[in-house]
């Protein structure tokens, strides 16, 4: 294991986030605050309680998840897409490092940034509503697993995309809708039976539900189902990445 190389990629990626600190950290915090103002305070005041917690507190885990998924995907995809786009990827490919180490550096940095952002959003939310976290370790586990999995997904998108349009396409057309329809702002109990069944096909439901369970001890689906889905996701993402590197897809002609 070439730890020096991994560290170099990791620190360079973290430095890139710091260079664009406004875009990387401030904007998610601002947008999350806006969600709280609109959904938490304005609309939430008309909704009494969901699953035994106040609406403002109910949406906290979902909001963190929303931010976590979009940030993980966009950071990781841009991180590997940009060297491909600018041509500096030659250096990564010619370096004495394994593919696993390349992924570890890029995805590790993207996931770290997402987890930090998640914690910042959590802190921001605390300013608006009061809530408790029943299982903090499970919460952290979900935070890390989700950040890791969606950073891997972002890495895949960053390699698949051959232009800026495609880079935006998956986050915009798939990740964001799935998150909004994934029980971020509502409990799926509120939906008619048919749509409940459809919703259960949405993997994000399991992530939000599991994450919410770690806060309040209850979710739309069982915590085990949530853990199984996230692990499955992680496995699929790893399999795709190992295929990418084995075949040299879009990296090595």
């Amino acid at each position: 294991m070439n730890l020096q190389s991994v560290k170099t990629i990791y620190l360079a990626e973290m430095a890139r986030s710091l260079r664009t600190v406004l875009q990387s950290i401030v904007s998610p915090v601002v947008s999350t605050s806006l969600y709280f103002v609109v959904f938490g305070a304005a609309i939430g005041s008309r909704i009494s309680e969901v699953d035994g917690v106040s609406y403002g507190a109910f949406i906290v885990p979902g909001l963190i998840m929303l931010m976590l998924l979009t940030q993980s995907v966009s950071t990781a995809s841009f991180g590997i897409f940009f060297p491909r786009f600018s041509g500096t990827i030659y250096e990564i490919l010619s370096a004495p490092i394994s593919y696993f180490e390349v992924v570890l550096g890029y995805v590790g940095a993207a996931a770290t940034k997402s987890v930090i952002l998640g914690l910042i959003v959590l802190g921001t939310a605390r300013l608006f509503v009061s809530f408790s976290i029943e299982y903090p370790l499970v919460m952290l586990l979900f935070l890390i697993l989700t950040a890791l999995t969606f950073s891997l997904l972002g890495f895949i998108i960053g390699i698949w995309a051959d232009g800026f349009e495609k880079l935006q396409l998956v986050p915009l057309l798939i990740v964001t809708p799935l998150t909004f329809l994934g029980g971020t702002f509502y409990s799926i109990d509120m939906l008619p039976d048919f749509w409940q069944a459809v919703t259960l096909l949405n993997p994000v439901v399991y992530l939000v539900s599991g994450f919410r369970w770690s806060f309040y001890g209850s979710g739309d689906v069982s915590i085990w189902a949530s853990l199984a889905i996230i692990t499955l996701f992680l496995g699929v993402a790893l399999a795709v990445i190992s295929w990418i590197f084995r075949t040299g897809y879009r990296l090595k002609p």
Partner: protein
Amino acid sequence: MTLSANLAPIAMAEHGTAGGDIGAGTPMIQVERLSKAYGDGFQALKEVDLTIRRGEIFALLGPNGAGKTTLISVICGLVNATSGSVKVDGFDNVTQYREARERIGLVPQELTNEAFTTVWDTVSFSRGLFGKPKDPAHIENVLRALTLWDKRDNRLLELSGGMKRRVLIAKALSHKPQVLFLDEPTAGVDVELRREMWEVVRGLRDQGVTIILTTHYIEEAEEMADRIGVIRRGELVLVEEKSTLMRQLGRKELTLHLATPLDAVPAALAGHDLVLTEEGHALVYTYDVTHLDEGTGIAGLLADLEATGIRVKDLHTRQSSLEEIFVNLVRERT
């Protein structure tokens, strides 16, 4: 230009080398039966065999699209070979890619860089990426040698094209490679910068770095290289010492400036392959230095001239440039 004088300790030292004698030990690069067909069926390399000696400057010469960059890319790990093998200092570049790649520095053709990073950061990044611990003294040496030291805190987007090229060289040298690949180092570079680049390359060679450069400027190969390989349509059509190449394939011209102009080549000289030029003021005799053992025929020609009483004012000889050799070569094999 004092670039080469500045280059003192910037290369090697982190790997043992096979003694430094040219030809000693394992070759620096050993390419065997290397072929590459791209996905669209284009055959970029066909069964290429090539041995690069330690410490030499090897120029890979060929027209655009001949396969120069593909060959370099396969050796450096940017492109997968279809068949064949590459060994770097004895290490296979696929099964022992770590050992192979840490010996290589690559300067790509395109001026690619991260626009918002500083010179210092990007060169330090390259060193770390190659798994080497921080070494600010070495980075400083490299930057000074390439006259980039004053620009170390500048962001790359603020630099001129020539400086960006030097930054790419600094990045490639940051991990003290034993062999440096320069893909078209002087493409689109003005004359002064080109001379400067040559100085840098010579300075590196003097430290024992093996250098492989691609170029389609014959002048560059002629100026720089110890050996020259000519690649055409994916085939290595020739690998030769530059001096041998010049000697073997070169044709020489002897021009005789005449005291009084002639209307035609005199019958007495018809046996010699002469051409009358400069409106009858000069006779040009072409001979092939490939067959020196058979004699050049110059002695006979001069004797016959003496006999006809034609007075010669002056004479000079000229050897064909590599460009002419190259053109002849490409013409012959088509």
